[in-house]
């Protein structure tokens, strides 16, 4: 025989009419960037990268002041000392404190990196943006020019330009910027071409908006994602190129230190067993590249809607 379930009164309470409550089951609505940030935060490796970058920047600013030595004072009685209590990173072959030089070098290397990336960004965004929006013949010509410049091996170009210019910080930055913007321009152009088809752009044009207004207000904010990733990844490239230039004697003039010049100065020191002089700038360069690379990758993943969980 069937047993009927016992029916109690509290099974028949009225349903809650609060629709807003219903939505609480769903994810709260987020702005685009907040969403990106949350996803980024969950990527442990990327966060390590970000924190490393921040620490490096902080050390670059305050590091040279931390232990009272300057980056240029020489003391030959204390040359080639291993890291010790007084000189935390040791000294180089002229008795200069390596800790101070390392963070002074951080300033220069990071400055070159960021500056080159920034200039690439500015030129690239406007070149690619205009090319994309204008389309047609303008686009064609602009892109052909870019292609031609792109065909010259980057390092080759930089070296050639460095021979013509005088040695110096800005020469290096300029040399790197002359062809560095092309990838950015291509990226932006691609994005712009895609977005151009959207209705909101048609609407804006119909309302009489100028090209630059559309670029600034609509295109660029919507392409910031890939642009940021590109910037993040071009910083380490710049640092790498700078190190190579230093090796070829085309780097920062002495006695200023960049990680690149510190590394190439120290190549001879391993012949007499002083590995730390080479390891320190090498480790710093690697750390920086690692940090930017994982952060850039994480950013790219965070921006990719396909990976949304």
């Amino acid at each position, binding site marked *: 025989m069937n047993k009927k379930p016992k029916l109690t009164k509290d099974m028949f309470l009225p349903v809650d009419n609060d629709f807003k409550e219903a939505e609480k089951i769903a994810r709260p609505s987020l702005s685009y960037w907040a969403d990106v940030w949350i996803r980024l935060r969950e990527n442990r490796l990327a966060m390590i990268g970000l924190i490393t970058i921040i620490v490096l920047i902080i050390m670059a600013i305050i590091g040279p002041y931390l232990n009272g030595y300057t980056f240029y*004072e020489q003391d*030959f009685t204390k040359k080639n000392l291993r890291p010790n209590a007084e000189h935390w990173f040791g000294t180089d072959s002229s008795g200069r404190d390596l800790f101070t030089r390392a963070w002074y070098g951080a300033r220069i290397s990071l400055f070159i990196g960021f500056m080159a990336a920034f200039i690439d960004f500015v030129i690239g965004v406007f070149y690619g943006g205009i090319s994309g929006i204008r389309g047609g013949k303008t686009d064609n010509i602009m892109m052909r020019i870019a292609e031609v410049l792109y065909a010259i091996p980057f390092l080759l170009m930089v070296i050639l330009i460095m021979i013509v210019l005088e040695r110096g910080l800005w020469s290096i930055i300029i040399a790197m910027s002359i062809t560095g913007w092309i990838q950015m321009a291509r990226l932006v152009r691609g994005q712009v071409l895609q977005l151009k088809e959207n209705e909101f752009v048609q609407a804006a044009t119909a309302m009489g908006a100028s090209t630059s207004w559309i670029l600034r207000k609509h295109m660029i904010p919507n392409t910031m994602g890939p642009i940021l990733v590109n910037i993040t990844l071009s910083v380490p490239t710049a640092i790498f190129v700078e190190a190579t230039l230093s090796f070829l004697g085309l780097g920062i003039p*002495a006695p200023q230190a960049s990680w690149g010049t510190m590394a190439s100065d120290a190549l*001879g020191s391993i*012949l007499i067993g002083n590995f730390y002089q080479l390891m320190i700038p090498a480790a710093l360069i690697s750390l920086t590249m690692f940090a930017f690379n994982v952060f850039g990758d994480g950013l790219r993943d965070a921006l990719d809607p396909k990976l949304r969980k």
Partner: protein
Amino acid sequence: MKKKLGSTLILILSTFFVLAGCFGGGTTKEPASNDSGKPSDETEETAPKVLRLNNSSEPGSLHPGTAQGTHDSWILEHAFEGLTKKTQEGEIIPGMAEEWETSEDGLTWTFHLRDGIHWSNGEQVTAADFEYAWKYALNPESASTYAYQLYYLEGGQEFNEGKAGEDKVGVTATDEKTLEVKLAQPTPYFLDLTSFYTYYPINQKVQEANPEWYQEADTYVSNGAFKLTEWKHKESIKLAKNEHYYEQDKINLDEVHFVIIDDENTAWQMYQAGELDLVYPLPQDVQGQLMANNDPEFVAGPDLSVYYYNINNNVKPFNNPKVRKALSMAIERQTIVDHVAQGGQPPAYSVVPPGIPDVNGDYQENTGKLFEENLDEAKKLLEEGLAEEGMDQIPNFTLTYNTSEGHKAIAEAVQEMWRKNLGIEMTLENVEFQVKLDREKAGDYTISRAGWVGDYVDPMTFMDLWVTDGPYNDADWSNAEYDKLVQTAKTTMDQEVRMKAMHDAEKILMDEMPILPIYFYTKPFTVKPNVTGIYTPINRYPQFIYADIE
């Protein structure tokens, strides 16, 4: 689609493998018995004695007339021989010429060539070969860098400048074995010059038949202890004993192999790994360590050169001698030598290096210290000098040096010394060697690093540098008294008069300090213990003509 992709990649990969295989197989293998550098089995008497050296750079030209520097001369000095040659002590002894006479006025020299001298192709070496070679170097069409070395000959300079004909040059082969030389003025060190490579002979027949004979090993003809057997451009050069050399029984080596490695560090590592028998130059830090440890393989050879800073005397306030002297006095030379250059170099308080015989004793020893380092005096002079120029501070200026770790370290040290001792702000600039030369000639610099190697063993090779409007006077300094003294020393054969004049001239030079001497070079190198017989005459690279390997 996938298949296409896969097969394409396999195609690309296999292409790489094939290419690697093609080019990988074609390289030659070194004779194993010499690769390790260890004296292996003594019973193996038939193993050839091969000396392995590094020439640092591809030779610019292995033609005696158009050679450009040490990357050419090291090989030339062993492939060729001039009228005379030098011993370890720097003594001039007969080479191709067995005896010579000079006229009373010192203007005419007559050389008599010895018997049995042959080119590496068997032909006889004649006096005509010398005459031909010297005229070839002086010919403006040859564009010889060292033609000026032959200006001592009558008519030499005029011919080279295109103002006179070849027949006016004072060298004639009066017969097969006699060479008559007429000089433009009496030159006491002329004999020394005849051992310099610009004075080597050239086989006239070979040159006329094939003007490019010197560019490849199979067409190369020379008259010295060794002949060129292989030249893989930018890679390696091989010399072998010249069986036609008149003294070939004194030559122990069978072959000499040069690699061409530019990077000092790499060359040192090759030496450490036993792939080279001798290394020169050495990386600075390595030098310091070897000296400090008294390493038995380290040899502190002598050199005849001075390391100095050129000052552009036309730029204010460096036109003022007091300012220049102040700069000089504020440099701590001993510190630089001990901790930066690290080669046991003597600090320079004059310009002529040690090693040149004076009337009595050594010229530089007799010179002594022509100035002293003194910080207080330096500060005082600087103030006075600036005041005289109407300035109260030296503006930030640039010191230019040619790209090299060594020069950079020294420049950094000097920069710091001037900052610490005199409160001067200065920028360093490194440019390529060619650029530096160009800018010095054009006067487009403020202070630049320079060095000068003596061409012959006499103080004149240095004193001559700073005569008014001299071709090497990049400082653009001028002093009439100095010019007069130098001229005196050039035109007399009386050594006492000459030496005194040059000593006096040097005093004037150091009094006005148009250039800042830093140190006198040494020639530190390392050589494996099983290699003997290497000697270093003062202004030559290590000579291996009589070397032997155990």
